[in-house]
């Protein structure tokens, strides 16, 4: 699975893009966030407050309880602040 991070999530994880294969028990975005938090101190810091995170599956915004399904690309980031 392609994982993308933006803004302070990217800075805390230490990269904007990585490939990971989460275990079969990871079924939702929320599960993914909890699993990612175990991978490194940077990941843990980025995923520490899931309520501050937003997500997109295959470039569509989804809520944190959304199932991962057959997601190819999952992005995690703060609420958007464009314009």
């Amino acid at each position, binding site marked *: 699975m392609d994982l*993308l991070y*933006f*803004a*302070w999530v990217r800075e805390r994880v230490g990269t904007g893009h990585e490939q990971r294969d989460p275990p079969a028990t990871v079924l939702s975005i929320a599960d993914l966030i909890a699993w990612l938090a175990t991978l490194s101190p940077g990941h843990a810091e980025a995923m520490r407050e899931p309520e501050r995170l937003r997500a*997109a599956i295959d*470039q*569509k*915004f989804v809520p944190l309880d959304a199932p991962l399904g057959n997601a190819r690309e999952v*992005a995690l*980031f*703060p*609420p*958007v*602040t*464009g*314009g």
Partner: protein
Amino acid sequence: MIRVSVDPAPIELAVEVAALEERGAGGVATFTGLVRGDDGVTALELEHYPGMTEQALIALAETATERWSLLGVTMVHRIGVMVQGDRIVFVGTAAHHRREALEACAFLIDRLKTDAPFWKREQRGEDARWVDARHTDAEAAGRWG
């Protein structure tokens, strides 16, 4: 006609407005967002989600053309580093009548704030800080249903 652009180059207002005026409309409404100079901000940096951003802007423009009778929609967002007075975003709509142009323009900029994946980072001298999303932006986007 829908034109969407996400680009580090400066936004050329005259060029964008002229393209909308060529649509044969009775009215063109535009909104330009600028980098504010308050709070000691020395620079602003815009990050985005390449690919998703363009899709999100096109989807918004299509929603607007379904909701209002429009002859043209332009959404241009700058990315990268900007300074005070620089244009960050331009939204323009062309329609036969002013109300449609004005309402669609307001809808697009309100929804862009919540529906397009851009993030702002403010630089104050050596200090850099990501801008938090504003509750009022969500309210403004929500009023369009």
